[in-house]
């Protein structure tokens, strides 16, 4: 199966290992992965801050970049959600709405793609330890991907998954919210770190780099001994 990778700007610049793991994992599962280098950012930071005009520029670029793709796969629930939002962004725009719809329809978050399209539930991964999984708000509530990450994680050998208490709570990232509303964000991320600690997990896993940067950054600042991993890295562990 031919897959076009939308790696996200966070992964490209800050977490390239997540991108590498995604490529290697998809290849192991029999996919041919391509990466169009003219891809940039989905435009979510500007869109969520009210700069819709700027977001549209970014979106138009991405629509063109992925026009020829059969499947667009991304290791981020939040960025996949943004692609799914494009038809709304261009509502009533004769030139772009249809093209936006086509992109939205063929875009998948990584675990969603593996479970729903590749129909694989065991990727043959192995990781020793105890882990908990943070369900990101955009992936679960907006994209509607709730089961796929757990299905895949439950089949990782030697990995014990512990339920995260109050898992429905947001971690306090929210893009620019984490900066603009820092005092509130701090309370939210502390609440999340506390929940993670209660699980006594070695690893905190999630499918969104934004959340992981936030929770991980706080964990590091507080000097807690919990390793933060993206689900692509876990599923690519042998």
């Amino acid at each position: 199966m031919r897959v076009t990778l939308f790696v996200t700007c966070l992964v490209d610049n800050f977490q390239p290992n997540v991108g590498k793991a995604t490529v290697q994992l998809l290849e192991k599962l029999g996919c041919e992965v391509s990466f169009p280098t003219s891809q940039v950012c989905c435009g979510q930071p500007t869109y969520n801050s009210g700069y819709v005009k700027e977001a549209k520029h970014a979106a138009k670029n991405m629509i063109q970049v992925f026009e020829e793709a059969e499947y667009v796969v991304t290791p981020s629930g939040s960025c996949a959600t943004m692609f799914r939002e494009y038809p709304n962004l261009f509502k009533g725009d004769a030139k772009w709405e249809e093209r936006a719809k086509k992109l939205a329809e063929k875009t998948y978050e990584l675990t969603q793609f593996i479970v729903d399209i590749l129909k694989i539930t065991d990727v043959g991964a192995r990781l020793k330890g105890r882990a908990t999984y943070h369900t990101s708000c955009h992936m679960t509530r907006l994209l509607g991907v709730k089961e796929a990450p757990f299905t895949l994680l439950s089949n990782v050998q030697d990995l014990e998954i512990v339920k995260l208490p109050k898992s429905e709570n947001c971690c306090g990232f929210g893009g620019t919210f984490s900066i603009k509303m820092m005092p509130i964000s701090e309370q939210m991320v502390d609440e999340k770190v506390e929940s993670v600690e209660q699980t006594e997990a070695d690893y905190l896993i999630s499918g969104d780099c934004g959340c992981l940067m936030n929770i991980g950054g706080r964990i590091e600042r507080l000097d807690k001994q919990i390793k933060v991993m993206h689900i692509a890295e876990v599923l690519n562990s042998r």
Partner: protein
Amino acid sequence: MGIKISNNQFKERVSEGIENTTMRGAVSNAQERLYTRRLTASQELGNWEEWRELGEQIRQHTLENLDYYLMQLSESVTNRGGHVFFAKTKEEAANYIKEVTEKKNARKIVKSKSMVTEEIELNKTLESIGCEVVESDLGEYILQINDYEPPSHIVAPALHLTKEQIRDIFQEKLGYELSEDPYEMTKFVRKILRQHFMEAEIGITGCNFAVANTGSICLVTNEGNADLVASIPKTHIAVMGMERLVPTMEELDVLVGLLTRSAVGQKLTSYITTVGPKYDEEADGPEEFHLVIVDNGRSNILGTEFQSVLQCIRCAACINVCPVYRHIGGHAYGSIYPGPIGAVLSPLLGGYDYYKELPYASSLCAACTDACPVKIPLHELLLKHRQVIVEKEGRAPLTEKVAMKMFGMGTSSTNLYNLGTKVAPVIMKPIVSGERISKGIGPLKNWTAIREFPAPSKERFRDWFEDYKKGGRNE
């Protein structure tokens, strides 16, 4: 004042909320309890999503035909012998009620809980002509005797107080001598309120829903106080927001079920009553009935991109799941309407001058949108506010504008992106230690105030991929 409950700036209000650990404990406990109860109640009913869709349809249909249903409601009430007053502003609404009160020579008025009477500052107006106004909802009563402390929640106005704090208020204000046991405290207040119910000449209620074709007002409570307010005094005045109506009893049935389950996790509350002008064959009940229909900015929302906010049935489910509300409390919103619904509604009713920060007081986690029983896309409306603030109102701070414009340029052109991401590690080098940034500058300052920020990777993913595809690398 109107919906405004504070003169402090947003930042101060947030700090005050965060520092108030007692309040946060009370709010967090209440949220947890209400969350579980709401989930159980919706699961028990079954097909929750379909019920929500039905609720949404009913509300949308009513709003799209609001002129028709308001006319029908007005006629139904008038035909039954009641009086209807359409108030364009809060002053008009309060003045009308003042005039009725003066005509009746009333000295004592009992009220049941009503957000719209808070909105029109009714108590202040009535007290200015020497009336004694008594709030009969237990939560409202606590706040009233506590020198009119503002409500922090639209269903449970004193949700921010613990039972110990309430005991102290009763001790100080009413000479209460018993314990903080809710049963004992309620029994004590009940006795006081009974006397007021018997003495009041006018009863003022809100209106959960008005039924257009029957001219009835539906009141939903667990305390039964609204029933006493609407039945003992000789005059009953009901005050409603102009959007709070349903076509017939059939739609009322659906919405009341959604309301009670979403608000308090109950199939039905203890008292659900429909009242209205007295029918000739009825032996008792108020002799005079007035319905005050309040616009106060609502019609400006109709027909705009914010219209769906008028679908709201004031259940507070969005407030009860909101993590921001949990940490800052209701008062921090500076409005009688807090939480996600307040962050959408307050700028619309009260203007951006005082409420421009509220749409940003959300991580866009969408828990509110998920919880709303009539499917108001709350987080999307918050985004629309942000767009209006930036693009129409031009109120965004200059530094943000510059940063966003630059980011916008960098994210729509591959060349600029490449330039930016190649230069970033060099520029950031002085503030990087190891693999992280602990003391950021510019927009990063607030990030690193509480957490580490990863240093930009020396090799971007795209550089690795290029090599990898050439077959040069396999790690």
